């Protein structure tokens, strides 16, 4: 399940995928674009206070449209700007969103959207058993709780933003986040798998400090 790419992709890196998708109707390329913009749009939509379900539906509507109308989109050279502005127009349901607003969102700092190199490194160095245990924990979570874990531990949204996006109290978010972590700890501690990942983490930690020094 360690299929996380070593190199972090950016929206603009997907230009070749966009081209492949338009000219060859390639599904893998389409999926790569989807995967990237799913995070991007979830971040923007939830930040702007839209309901999480509405944001998800809008993302899928946009991509459904793109899939069905790929031949009509041949002229779109800058897929990044095209996707963001069509997402925002759909989300706001009208033209109330200003062009400078869209411009500001098209170059959102990368650090807000994708995990840092160090975190990806940590993840890729987890051992297989740990990764499997993680998957089990995540699979056991109800869909809503998984969404909140995603919003908190991946998108890095604040508790307030998450509570607004999911229509629950801040306390519920706290408890969900905390419960998921303690589930994970219970499983790991039971099987005593942590040792391996700890060693690898220490290595990374010291490497990091030596580099700094």
């Amino acid at each position, binding site marked *: 399940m360690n299929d996380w790419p070593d190199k972090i992709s950016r929206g603009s890196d997907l230009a070749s995928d966009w081209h492949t998708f338009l000219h060859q109707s390639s599904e893998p390329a389409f999926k790569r674009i989807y995967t990237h913009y799913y995070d991007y749009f979830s971040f923007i939509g939830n930040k702007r206070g839209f309901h999480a379900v509405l944001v998800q539906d809008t993302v899928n509507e946009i991509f459904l449209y793109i899939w069905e109308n790929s031949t009509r989109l041949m002229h779109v050279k800058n897929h990044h700007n095209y996707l963001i502005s069509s997402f925002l127009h759909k989300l706001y349901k009208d033209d109330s969103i200003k062009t400078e607003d869209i411009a500001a969102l098209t170059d959102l700092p990368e*650090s807000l959207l994708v995990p840092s190199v160090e975190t990806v490194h940590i993840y890729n160095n987890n051992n297989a058993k740990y990764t499997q245990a993680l998957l089990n924990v995540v699979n056991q979570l109800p869909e809503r709780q998984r969404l909140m874990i995603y919003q908190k531990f991946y998108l890095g949204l604040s508790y307030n933003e998450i509570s607004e996006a999911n229509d629950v109290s801040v306390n519920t978010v706290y408890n969900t986040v905390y419960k998921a*972590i303690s589930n994970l700890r219970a499983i790991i501690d039971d099987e005593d798998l942590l040792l391996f990942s*700890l060693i690898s983490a220490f290595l990374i930690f010291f490497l990091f400090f030596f580099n700094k020094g």
Partner: protein
Amino acid sequence: MDQTQSENLLKDESFINYCLEKNENDTLYWRNWINDHPDAQPEITKLKIHVISLGITAAQQQRESQYLLLQQSIKRPYQNIKKLKPYHKFYYAAACLLAFAIVGACFIFANKTATSNYSTNKKHDVAPGGNNAVLLLANGEKINLTSAKTGLLAHQKEVSIFKNADGQILYKANNQSNGVDGPSVGTNTIETPAKGQYMVVLPDGTKVWLNAKTTLKYPETFAKNSREVELNGEGYFEVAHLADPKTGERVRFTVKTISAVNINSKIQYIEVLGTHFNVNCYPDEPDAVTTLLEGSVKVTDGDQKREALLHPGQQLINGDRSFNVVQANTDAAIAWKNGEFVFHEDISSALRKIARWYDVDVVYLPSAPQHLMLGGFISRQNELSEVLNLMESTGKVHLKLEGRRVLVTE
């Protein structure tokens, strides 16, 4: 580090931000913290791995399941989608109506029980605050802005002060002089009491809304190359763009805030060009909070050691030991300006807002809940008892109004 401590870390927003490296200030803070607490490092590392790995796994699963949904709708025949749409709308409408009906019923029901239970608070209620402020001129003259008549209020050397029909006060330059070269002549001060709020248009066109118990000091006329005001309390600023007629450069606007929380009295400088932002620096609040809605501001602390550049939607929390930039709930931050209380906070923080707006004292009895997070909103035009009822509807706290005191019990 024991179990509870590490569990608390997992709920800590700044700790999670450090794990994900989403926020420079938090990352720096925790790196320093680890340097100071080397024995906690193994536990911290362990927690960090959990946070990161859980996040990435959840993200993968989340995308996979959503992509699956997308594939399903791609494979569905086109006509079906068309047909379904009107029904969808009907269901949405029906669901909305039902939701409204339920909410309405809850409201009516809750109100009934609330008033019958806590009618004691209703007997001697406290009315909300209103537009109320005092203007202190450079020559020591005091003008009560509430009772003053519409029209000319005062005639100073450089400017005349008017009150318009809406009750706002306006500054007009006397002889087309747009600012002076040297330091300004005198200082004007606007003070809002407890239960007071006021909106003022400064000589440069900048609009400032002042919350209760707030003092704003500003020069009678701004200098040509810089504008400086001093704030104590809470204010929302809409700074006017202003360019120096000679150089064409934008004229800086600086807000200096002093909050006497720390012994070394916390001072901070907020430097802006033309923008909308809210500053909360009450002496009784633990943190001075600057929330940016538009434009950009730079905040520097008193001894110039730390500074932060804010982007719209961000908030700087300048507290006892923290100087953190976080994503803000902007609606909650400027709710007071729009005549609302929006509670997204601890009960004690919410009660401090109430104390200032209704001019009451809050007394915590020993059984009062220590940490109770509140969420909700209500208009500031309500009587105090309504607001207290809303807080009591959590079922975890009792608030009793005795004269000018609110007693907090379990």
